[in-house]
Every structure is written in C-alpha cells, then in structure tokens.
C-alpha cells in the first residue's frame, strides 16, 4: 500500500519539493552563509559544489559582530517597540471603531463607514511622500511619534473588527441592554471574551505592517538611534557591502522574528487577510 502511494505520488512530490526549494533555497543559503567565516562564503559557489549549502562547523562570529559592533540591537528593539505600540494602540482604536460600526445605529453611519473603506483603497506607500509634509507640520519628523502614530488607524483592521462583531448575535447585546448594561459592560462582558481570533489576526496584520515598513521610516527618521530594522538593513548593505556574512546574519534575524510569530498563528493570519480581502 505504502509503495503504491509513493509510486503514484513520486512525480507529484518531486514537483512540490522543487517549488518548495525555490522558496527555501535562498534562505537556506543565507542561513549557512551567515554561519561561515567571511572568506569562505563564495568558496563553494563558483564553481558550484554542494558544500555551499552545508556546513562542517558553525561560526557565530557574524551574529556576535552585528549586535556588539554594528548596533543592530538598537534597530531590533526600535522595530519591536514601534510594532508593539502600534499593535496595542491600533487594536484599541480600530477595535472600538469596528464595535461602533457593528452595533450602534447613528446618523452618518453609512457615510463614515464609506470613508473608512475609501481610506484603505489608497495604499500607504502612495501617500508616504505627502505624509512627510503633514508630519512636519506636527513637528514629529525624526521621532517615535512619526513612526507609530500614522500607523495606528487602519481601515482594513476597522473593517475586520466590524465583520467579526457583526456575526455575534444581536440578541446577546439586546438582552444585556434590557438588564441595564451600558455599552462598556456590553463590550467588556459580551464582545471581548469572544474576540480572541479577530484580535490575533488584527494584531498580526498591524505587526507585520510595522515590522516590514521601509519607505515611511526611511523618510521620516534620520537619527541612528531611531533606525528601524528594515532601514538599518538597507544602511548596512550600503555601508558594509562586502561583509556578506554579517548582512546574511542581520537579514536572518529580521526574518526569523516575524516567522516565529507568524507560523504558529498562520491560521489566524489567513483568516484575517482573507476576511479583510474579499469575503466582506
């Protein structure tokens, strides 16, 4: 039986392995190269030998150097701080807005929701350049405010919360209202305990948005001590062009952190992006 399965499936498995390798190979090469001394990185690539993809011994010097000498730790902490604050603030303000759109009736509801949807049809990249002028008026250029505040309100996340809250039966809220509960009690006791999945998927969306953002941090900050991880990486590749092992080490750190968060929660992430996308 087992042989029969492998017999029929073997070409299929080979196809999947080939496609999988296309995705994994560059990252695998990056991983092994980061664990080599600098002078050995291109030793096995031209002409190519399989040794390029395997290691006889591990050399963690590159990881050590990026944190001790290149100040990469500051960038990791900055990104973690900016992402954490944006997730926290974003969940609160977008969650409240989604809650209001889902359960309240008030004049102007349709119009305000339309404006929300409109706001996420314009990609953030498109407005990064004019946003600079707005943030300059606030005097926030080169500060954490510039990095965090524009990312807080997010039309996609509001939409996500509204969709989720609309599925919770209204009778629950009505009953609580009959018993004299105010909106805060209803939110806290009825809606919040049910919202774990939407909070996780919204949190992941906001986290990835901030962790991967590049153009906006590039133009709104200048100081070394405000560099976020993606901007630090870009500066790195310009300044230490040939420190290949350190470049690999730094980009591995920047990739592994979101993957560690994303892969265990992939179910929520997929639910989140698809619900925000076309299921609405």
């Amino acid at each position, binding site marked *: 039986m087992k042989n029969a399965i492998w017999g029929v499936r073997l070409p299929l498995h080979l196809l999947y392995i080939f496609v999988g390798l296309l995705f994994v190979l560059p990252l695998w090469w990056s991983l092994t190269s980061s664990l080599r001394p600098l002078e050995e990185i291109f030793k096995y690539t031209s002409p190519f030998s399989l040794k390029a993809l395997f290691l006889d011994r591990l050399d963690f010097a590159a990881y050590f150097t990026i944190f001790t000498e290149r100040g990469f730790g500051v960038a990791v902490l900055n990104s973690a701080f900016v992402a954490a604050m944006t997730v926290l603030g974003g969940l609160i303000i977008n969650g409240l807005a989604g809650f209001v*759109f889902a*359960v*309240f009736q008030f004049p102007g509801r349709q119009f305000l929701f339309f404006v929300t949807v409109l706001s996420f049809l314009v990609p953030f990249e498109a407005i990064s350049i004019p946003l600079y002028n707005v943030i300059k008026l606030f005097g926030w250029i080169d500060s954490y405010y510039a990095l965090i505040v524009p990312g807080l309100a997010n039309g996609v996340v509001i939409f996500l919360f509204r969709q989720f809250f609309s599925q919770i039966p209204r009778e629950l809220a009505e009953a609580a209202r009959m018993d004299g509960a105010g909106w805060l009690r209803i939110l806290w006791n009825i809606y919040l305990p049910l919202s774990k999945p939407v909070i996780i998927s919204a949190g992941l969306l906001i986290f990835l948005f901030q962790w991967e953002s590049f153009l906006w941090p590039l*133009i709104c900050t200048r100081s070394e001590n405000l560099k976020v991880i993606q901007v630090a990486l870009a500066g790195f590749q310009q300044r230490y062009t040939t420190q290949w092992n350190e470049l690999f080490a730094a980009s591995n750190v920047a*990739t592994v952190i979101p993957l560690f968060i994303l892969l265990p929660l992939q179910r929520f992430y997929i639910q989140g992006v698809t619900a925000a996308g076309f299921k609405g």
Partner: protein
Amino acid sequence: MTYRRSAWIAYLLLAPALVCLAVFRLWPIATTLLGSLYSQSIMQAGKDVFVGLNNYTQLFRDPIFWQSLWVTIKLNLVINPLQVFIALLLAIMANQRFRGTGFYRLLFFIPLGVSVPIASILWRIMLDPNSGLANSLINLAGIPSQPFLISKDQALWCIVAIATWKGASFWMIFLWAGLQDIPRQLYEAARIDGAGGISRFFRITFPLLRRPLLFVLITDTAVNFLLFVPMFLLTRGGPSYSTNVLMYEAYKSGFVYGDMGRALALVMVLLVLVIATVAMQFRLFSQEEAN
C-alpha cells in the same frame, strides 16, 4: 442594539480612529493635489509660491518622466499577470490533499516572513555577476554567466523575479481560501459526467474563483505601481534609467533633489494611473461576468 438617544457615544468612540484616518490618510491626498501646484521660491529659501500647473507642464516636457512612465507601465504589464498566475498555481498546489501537503504548504508560506528589503538584499548577493549563486547554478546547466542587475536589458526583469518570489505566497493565500470555498461535490459531479482536469478548471474553478482573482489582481496592481524598494536598494533606477519607475523618481525629486512640488506632481500622476488601471480591470472583469 440601538443607541439613538446617545449617538454622541458612538461619535466619541469612533473619533480616535476616524480623526487619525482623516489626518494621516486623507489629508495627505489633499496636500498632494494642492502641493503639486506650488514650487519652492527662488527668491526666498523655504517659501513656497503658487505656480499653477507649472510642475505638470515641466514634467510632461521632461524625457526622464516619459522614460519612468514607460518603465512603470512595462513593469506592471508583466508583473501583475505573472504574480496572479503563479499565485494561482501555488494555490492549486496548496489545495491538493495528500500526505505531505501540510509540510509543503509551510514551505510556500516562508516568504511571508521575508520583507521586500530583505528579499532584495538576499537576491542582490545571489545575483552577483562574479560569485553569486545564480550564475554558478546556471553554469552547471551549461549557460554562460549573466550580468543580471548591472545590465540595462536584464535589471528590470530581475526585479520582477525578486518581487514575484517575495509576493506570490501572499497572493496565494487569498486564492487558496477561495478554492477552499468551492464545494468538492461540484468536482465529483463533473468527474462523473466525464469532464477532464482542464475542463473542470475552466467550468468550475475559474468562474467560482472570479471574486478572489479580481481582488488579488486589483490589490496587486496597486502594490506594484508603487514598487520602490528593489529600485532603491539594488539599482538606484539604473542602469541608464532602465528601472527608474515613477515612484522612485518621485522619491528622488522630493528627498534627494528637494523639489517637493515635482515629487507631489509625480505622486498625483501615479495615483491617477493606479485608479484608472484598477477601474479598467474592474470593468473588464464585471463585463465578463455579465456575458
């Protein structure tokens, strides 16, 4: 629950999010429109003067603008269909059920954790003409080494490949979710009626996947019109302007040459271009649906 009497609570709770959206998303669009009508004064540093449509007429007379527009269009004509097609293939692969698909799916998801800057940096080293992995692998197959990013004929296509490597798995998610919504009984019924794989795809999969496909195509188009990072990190718009997309030209005008008026005019052109393309895709697809 109706709170007609206390609508102010609703406004109060909405205020933080909506004020932020208005200030940080909508106001910048307004400043784009307005700011593109101003230029920095030559007489007085730091003062802006109203110049009407001057930024635009200057732009339309500039051969670099037309070159950038052409590069942007060329890039998008290739990258959007390509990414949607590859994402669809991946989604179909991810949707198969046999032992091991869970593991393969995990491999397909890995580029989700890789940001565009990281993808660019990794591929720059891989595509290094002298010692990169890409050349040594194609040498194995007997193909001579290629210049890749330093060639004006290849650089743009290398960027297409890098962006697709990074982006395909993200777009796959939507199509895969769409595929899972298609009832399996439909395929069973078609199989009993003797429909082959290709016919099943065009009769069942494609029509029922129209909504997610349209969504992916439109969103992907908007993202790729604004693609900026690979040009910024790998080619600086070169060699000889062959990868100088409008977004990169806008960034350079604003933050390298300090000409905000020109930068905003370029953003305006980009916005119009994106909206026009998306509207066109939308109409094309809904017309097909009507037929």
